């Protein structure tokens, strides 16, 4: 395996809230291989969006990267000066936001926003920028006559395509897509995902796709990272994680997710309880309070992320028993009363 494009090591991000601080991301480590799509999946508040934004180092005013490394092509971009980081932004690392409506400036035409990036960041002249803008629109399948339109004149799906075109403008090596299809209807969602996959393969770039939806991960991702309460629960090849999950949380998530291709009489099983408050997280494994398999050690010690199969890593004290736990986890009774 070649060296990954990006290696995140022990990343910590905390928010100043009230008088104290909350560790929204508490030691996240994962790799983004070259030329593949990595799915960063988790529920609201698990820290996935914070991780995505931390990689750009443009984070909320009250947030701070408090530790860890982000090795991008051999450079720790967590440590380089802001000026150097800014030179990297968009040229190497681009971003596709959740809502293209709010992330496009309403008072400029789409063309002018493409030009802004191409000329100010890409150093192109007017003519080259115009040619590139038209090329980009062709790539994402929008007629170039619409370049002169304002963002509000596009439909939701079209706007998302514009966002993709913007992200690809300077041929970045890494594109971070933060819930790029969440606000869209299923049909459009599918079209955008197809487009994203196609362009990613064509350009050979890497994509980090942040989502709460494991079916989106299943549809487009090569690898996946499952986050829970600010930590990585499981990381590995997408197929392995979804079909042979080793972390009880991933198992529970699978049970709770409806499957249109599954049996009609299937039962969904919830994970009882709610994610912990990150201002006062439980000691030990953060999933322990909701985990049906939790032992005494789980409430005491934080489980380390261990590699158990090739490229498949899990943070669970009972990961070695995973095959047995998987058997138990498919049964509804298992999840009825948390241990």
């Amino acid at each position, binding site marked *: 395996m070649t060296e990954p494009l990006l290696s995140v090591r022990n990343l910590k991000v905390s928010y100043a809230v009230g008088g104290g601080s909350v560790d929204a991301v508490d030691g996240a480590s994962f790799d983004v291989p070259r030329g593949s799509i990595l799915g960063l999946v988790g*529920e609201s508040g698990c820290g996935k969006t914070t991780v995505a934004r931390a990689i750009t180092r443009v984070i909320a005013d009250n947030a701070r990267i408090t530790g860890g490394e982000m090795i991008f092509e051999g450079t720790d971009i967590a440590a380089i000066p802001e000026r150097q980081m800014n030179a990297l932004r968009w040229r190497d690392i681009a971003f596709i936001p959740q809502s293209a409506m709010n992330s496009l400036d309403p008072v400029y035409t789409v063309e002018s926003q493409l030009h802004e990036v191409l000329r100010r960041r890409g150093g192109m002249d007017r003519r080259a920028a115009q040619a590139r803008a038209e090329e980009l629109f062709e790539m994402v399948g929008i007629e170039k006559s619409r370049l002169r339109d304002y963002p509000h004149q596009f439909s939701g799906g079209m706007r998302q395509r514009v966002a993709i075109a913007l992200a690809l403008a300077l041929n970045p090596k890494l594109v971070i897509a933060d819930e790029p299809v969440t606000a869209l209807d299923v049909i459009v969602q599918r079209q955008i995902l197809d487009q994203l*996959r196609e362009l990613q393969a064509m350009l050979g770039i890497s994509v980090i796709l942040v989502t709460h*939806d494991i079916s989106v991960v299943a549809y487009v991702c090569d690898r996946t990272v499952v986050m829970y309460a600010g930590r990585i629960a499981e990381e590995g090849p997408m197929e392995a994680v*979804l079909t042979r999950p080793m972390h009880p949380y991933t198992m529970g998530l699978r049970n709770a997710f*409806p*499957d249109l291709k599954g049996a*009609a009489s299937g*039962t*969904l099983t919830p994970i009882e309880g709610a994610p912990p408050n990150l201002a006062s997280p439980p000691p030990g494994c953060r999933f322990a309070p909701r985990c049906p398999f939790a032992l005494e050690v789980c409430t005491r010690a934080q489980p380390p992320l261990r590699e158990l199969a090739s490229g498949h890593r899990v943070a669970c004290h009972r990961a070695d028993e995973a095959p047995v736990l998987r058997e138990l986890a498919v049964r509804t009774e298992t999840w009825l009363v948390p241990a």
Partner: protein
Amino acid sequence: MAGAGMRPIDPIASEPLVSIRDVQLHYRMGGIFSAMRGRSSVVKAVDGVSFEIRRGESVGLLGESGCGKTSMGRLLLKLEEATGGEIVFAGEPVTALKRAALKRYRARAQLIFQNPFDAVNPRFSIRAALSEPLENAGIPAAEREGRIVKALELVRLPQPQQFLDRYPHQLSGGQLQRVVMARALILEPDFVVADEPVSMLDVSVRAGVLNVFRDVRDRLGLTAIYISHDLALVRYVCERTIVMYLGKVMEDGPTEDIVREPLHPYTQALVAAVPVPQPDQSHDPLPIGRGAPDPRNPPSGCVFRDRCPYAFERCPVEVPRLRQVGTRKVACHLFDDTTGKQ
């Protein structure tokens, strides 16, 4: 009449509890003054929808944003006044209900809201929120607490007493959605409309709320409409599904049939597009054209024709009627008797 007659149903139960006949909800955009000068920009949120719901039936109302499913739900609860057509509940026209009669209807038909954090007044304790319907129904103060606790038990909130004096922000999304459900059920209604009740919740707690909904519905013998954009969820809760697109019904029939063999081209695209949480998925191209639905400016004839891969001469000229095709009803010219089947 295969589909409808499949289940053994006794005659009284098979009589429709709710009948919707050619219901319309048209909004005029712009103010009264622009309308006075004859400037009409009409959005047809619901445009000539007809269906019936039998007692005890659970029907899913499925569609994308802007298809009119939520408006339909609001019309059923008289939160919105229909601009045309008729809604009949247990033989009584809902559209004409006033004051006392409306109050009685409100005790029998209820709504479960989409966003639990919006549906409970943040200034109200759970007790106060649940007291409101009881108060309005004239339940004496002494009985209320008992009813409230019972309703919270019904939705499986453990130790209901501990929640009574809490405020919405002190509850998790899943807990609060159960409170919203309890409020809808507290007057023991016959009919419940659930408007995307789990779309704001995290996946891990969704299933719990859905299970409670299924369970309570079966136990109380409720007639229910479940509004959703997610076919997989509708399939989990409803035996019958009505597919809407731009204010109109496209297809109406048993959910399993629709999932297995969708007839309407729109439903076909919808079923094909639903992502599943399994790795091995076909990446076949969707049977749909480009273009996006614009509720303000729908195409002539069939509203789906601009995205339909099978559209032909007839589609722009004539609005397809909903007609019986096997177990279901479909509004598509491909199924016109004159044209024959596909």
